[in-house]
């Protein structure tokens, strides 16, 4: 037994002295559990997305229904409702549908609710809205659609009925309106069930008729379904997908970029940390005694990482084409551009790891921690809109986020080179900043000693 204890003590001491092992055992799981917890609402009072930009455009005259729906949408924390935008000079203008479509194209907007000019027709009872969307993330889109329906179905009818009643009073006079509503209640009761008197009272007070259907448990169920039928008849939501209509396999197209970027980060980090192996083998001594500078060694590593990344990404996308039918050829030039920018940024990340870590084990541990965290925060696993505000802000500082956006712009939105340049530019800027830090660290560090 004492032998076992001696060996056990050896293992414990060894483990505690290995900071990489300790951090991988405790820190990495803790951070990832926190991120997953935020996504699935373990900690927050309610789960679901936060702050998704949603444009609301009212094309016709001011309408009580549009106002009521907009006000209700503003109450939803899932949405950041926009009805106006400010230009560079700070001048605020009301959003139009044309402008909204431009914002969709620029990937600044994924959802918009448009109340067309004929949203509330003078000749028919009901409300018509158009839901413009870019469902590049299916989970997010499903949640947004559900929330929109709930909000509209809750807020619209009352406003709609009250508005209708007031218009009827001003147009036809109180007596004729009352008569009209009484006949309406009788018709609703006849078609959907319920007590005509109760329906009349509800209609006159601007409430959604709630007394339709039979009483009792069975009646409640019937009431619910008939209310939905009723709502379906008075609310018409037209959905229009503005992007990704031609995508062949939407699910695979959405997710391939996220997985590709994560594996790429692991590959280039491994390539960069091979610097430690070369140092250990004494190869730097031989190389630096030859007509070779440190910068030659670092540039060769950098170019190797870029090349490896480019080939790996391209291969993964072609594998996606073969296995899942993802269309990678129709916008292949731009795909190469974003793959190259991504490889450049990822390789810079790998070089940074090699420059700040003191051993291959430390570099490997740090790489695991940062890659998993960046993938989670950057949106490679699930939509960033599901995370708290501060993580959404943080995600924009990760290369995973910009790579993901770039891949989706190419594969989903079929963007042009000009539209892609901001994403490639941010990735190259990240690479430049990270490389500057790496060079500074390499000059101060002991890798070449």
């Amino acid at each position, binding site marked *: 037994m004492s032998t076992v204890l001696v060996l056990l003590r050896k293992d414990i001491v060894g483990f505690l002295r290995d900071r990489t092992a300790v951090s991988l055992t405790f820190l990495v799981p803790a951070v990832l559990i926190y991120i997953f917890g935020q996504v699935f609402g373990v900690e927050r009072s309610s789960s679901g997305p936060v702050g998704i930009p949603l444009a609301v455009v009212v094309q016709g005259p001011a309408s009580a229904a549009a106002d009521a729906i907009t006000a209700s949408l503003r109450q939803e924390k899932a949405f950041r409702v926009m009805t106006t935008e400010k230009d560079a000079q700070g001048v605020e203008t009301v959003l139009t549908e044309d402008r909204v479509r431009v914002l969709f194209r620029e990937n600044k907007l994924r959802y918009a609710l448009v109340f067309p000019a004929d949203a509330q027709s003078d000749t028919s009872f009901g409300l018509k809205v158009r839901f413009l969307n870019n469902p590049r993330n299916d989970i997010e889109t499903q949640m947004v659609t559900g929330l929109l329906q709930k909000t509209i179905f809750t807020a619209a009818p009352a406003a709609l009925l009250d508005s209708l009643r007031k218009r009827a009073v001003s147009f036809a006079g109180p007596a004729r309106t009352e008569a009209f509503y009484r006949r309406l209640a009788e018709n609703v009761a006849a078609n959907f069930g319920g007590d005509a008197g109760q329906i009349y009272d509800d209609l006159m007070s601007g409430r959604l008729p709630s007394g339709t259907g039979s009483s009792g448990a069975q009646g409640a169920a019937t009431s619910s379904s008939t209310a939905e039928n009723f709502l379906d008849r008075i609310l018409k939501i037209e959905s229009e997908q503005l992007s990704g209509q031609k995508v062949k396999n939407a699910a695979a197209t959405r997710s391939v970029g996220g997985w590709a970027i994560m594996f790429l980060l692991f590959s280039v980090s491994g390539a960069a940390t091979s610097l430690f192996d070369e140092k250990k*083998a*004494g*190869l730097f*001594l*031989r190389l*630096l*005694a*030859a*007509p*070779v500078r440190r910068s030659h060694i670092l540039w060769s590593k950098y170019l190797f990482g870029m090349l490896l990344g480019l080939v790996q990404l391209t291969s993964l996308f072609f594998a996606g084409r073969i296995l899942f039918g993802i269309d990678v050829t129709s916008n292949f030039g731009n795909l190469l551009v974003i793959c190259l920018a991504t490889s450049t940024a990822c390789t810079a990340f790998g070089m940074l790891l090699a420059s700040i870590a003191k051993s291959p084990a430390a570099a490997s541990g740090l790489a695991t921690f940062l890659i998993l965290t960046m993938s989670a925060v950057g949106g490679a696993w699930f939509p960033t809109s599901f995370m708290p505000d501060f993580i959404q802000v943080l995600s924009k500082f990760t290369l995973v986020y910009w790579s993901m956006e770039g891949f989706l712009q190419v594969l989903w939105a079929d963007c042009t080179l000009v539209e892609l340049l901001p994403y490639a530019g941010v990735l190259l800027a990240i690479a430049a900043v990270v490389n500057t830090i790496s060079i500074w660290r390499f000059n101060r560090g002991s890798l070449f000693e």
Partner: protein
Amino acid sequence: MLSLESVTKRYGSLTALSAVSLTLRRGEFFGLLGPNGAGKSTLMSLVAGLKQPDSGRVLLEGEPLVLSRLDLRQKLGFVPQTIALYEDLSAEENLRIFGRLYGLSGARLKERIQQCLTAAQLVDRRRDLVKRFSGGMQRRLNIVAALLHEPSLLLCDEPTVGVDPQSRNAIFEFLQQLNRQGLTVVYSTHYMEEATKLCSRIGIIDHGKLLALGTLDELLTHLPSTETLRITSSGAGSGRIAGLESFGSVSVTADATVLALAPATRLSSVFAHLEEAGIPASAVQLARPDLEDLFLHLTGKSLRDA
């Protein structure tokens, strides 16, 4: 060929080299002898241009060796202590890479690779991965990789560490042959035997200071006695040998009587005295002092214990 002028190198508070001055002539086989941590590798790295001295100068053929002078490195070949080879590449691929780094190409590169593989006795294994080589084969390849570009000065930093005796002898013969062909060699080692066997001149270094410098004979003159007679107890019997003190200082150990001969003592008279005392010749061993004795004399500690 190579000059070090009062070269000092510090790592933080540790002085790795302290005002070392040294001049090497073309064609020399110079040994740098010292224990681990004496400053040998630091001196080698300064000469190889891997580091800059904190003070003093390193001159190669009269020109200062500075990090920016890549052209001067063409004149140097450096054999690191470790097997500095790409073990997942073949012998030939390794040599091709290092040759290209020194600017060789085409037929000339091919010719030099062939010559180096021949010299390392690895022609038959040229396409084998280095990781499949024995330790001795890797060491030989490690050396010829520094010779591809035909340097005029070869720096060998303990190139036989961990090598079996047979391979070690092969490496010695190879280096001696190169030296005979005119190559100047600087060879650092902590093995006295290597320095004695190979080097025409030796520098003894410890704690960053060059303690002594010269040929083996010149170095041994630093010792108070030049030769020692060791008479085993089996031959001398239990008693003290009368009259031995007149030839030098006598010390008696458990298994032998040791006579450190006084300068100008005639050996023939000592042997005659021993014969008269009835000591058989087989019980007498004549030993010359070696670098181990010198290191002990200079530092107060054994080279192996340092």
